[in-house]
């Protein structure tokens, strides 16, 4: 089975979900950087994350977070992947990073919702209208 997967250009270790490593906000560049431990599922083909954006809503207020630069994951790559995000509202992005890390616990956190996710991976466009509440997405770790 594993040799068949290798012949198909797919990593025989299977599709491992990316593991969270670090999340930080750089005040000087107003950029949030997410670091993930990943293993590329493809052995002969690179994966290019052209676009990743989503909207965070709190009642009537909302702001969009988007990937700053496209990210290329080389074929067979195993290691750390850094994704840099920017937002039209840098202060809201900083607060969101703090909420996800558990540094801040504002009262409105239960009302925060993620929506309008748009991902472009190698020309495959995935859009999700509603992602749900922040507590559903981050489970016990979220406030």
């Amino acid at each position, binding site marked *: 089975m594993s040799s068949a997967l290798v012949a*198909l250009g797919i990593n025989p270790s299977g599709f491992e979900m990316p593991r969270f490593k670090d999340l930080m906000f750089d005040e000087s560049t107003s950029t949030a950087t997410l670091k993930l431990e990943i293993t590329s599922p493809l052995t*002969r083909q690179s994966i290019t994350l052209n676009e990743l954006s989503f909207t965070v809503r709190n009642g009537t207020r909302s702001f969009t977070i988007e990937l700053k630069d496209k990210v290329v994951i080389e074929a067979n790559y195993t290691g750390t992947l850094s994704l840099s995000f920017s937002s039209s509202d840098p202060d809201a992005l900083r607060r969101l990073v703090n909420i996800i890390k558990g540094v801040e616990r504002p009262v409105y956190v239960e009302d925060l919702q993620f929506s309008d996710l748009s991902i472009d991976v190698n020309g495959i466009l995935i859009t999700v209208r509603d992602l749900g509440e922040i507590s559903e997405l981050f489970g016990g770790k979220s406030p």
Partner: protein
Amino acid sequence: MKRNWFALATGALMLVTVASSLHSPWWRAEIGSGLITVNADPFYTSFKVFGVSYVIPIIFVLNVGLTALFVASGIALVVYTIEQEKGYSKHLLSFGWRRPLYVVVGFVAVLVLSLHVIPLVVNTIARAVEVSTPMVPLMGSSIIRLPSNVLNIPAQVSITVTTTFTHSFFLGVATVALAITTRACHRRMSSANKPT
């Protein structure tokens, strides 16, 4: 004796077309950004999925046969130019000049038919899937939207498809034009040489 130099040019261009096809397929469809590539060519058809190249044996055999026939026709036209005064030269021309026309017309016909027939087959076998007809344009870009009931996730997934005819195809078309000119030139030369 006046020589039909168009035949020499056609023969040479036929050989160039075959050589060019090995590097650049006549028609290319790219699904996603290089995730799946279909290289359709009368002389070398291949597929690339996740960076791995595949060749379908039966298509490969047909490609080899067609390449041999095409190269032989090209050589026949070159020999016709050199040995134009020989009695058998007419047969060489007759064998050679039609080949590019048949190959180009046949290639386009099979391509158009495939783009219309494959969606019908897919829609008949997998009723949950709805593939539009034609599946992709002959030349240009389109977006294939996967129905959400197939993926069973609350997301909309769409894939960009880009199709293009490469310079190899246009070389083939130029060969057809030259081959027709060769034939016309031969006819004019024959009628001019006829005793009145």
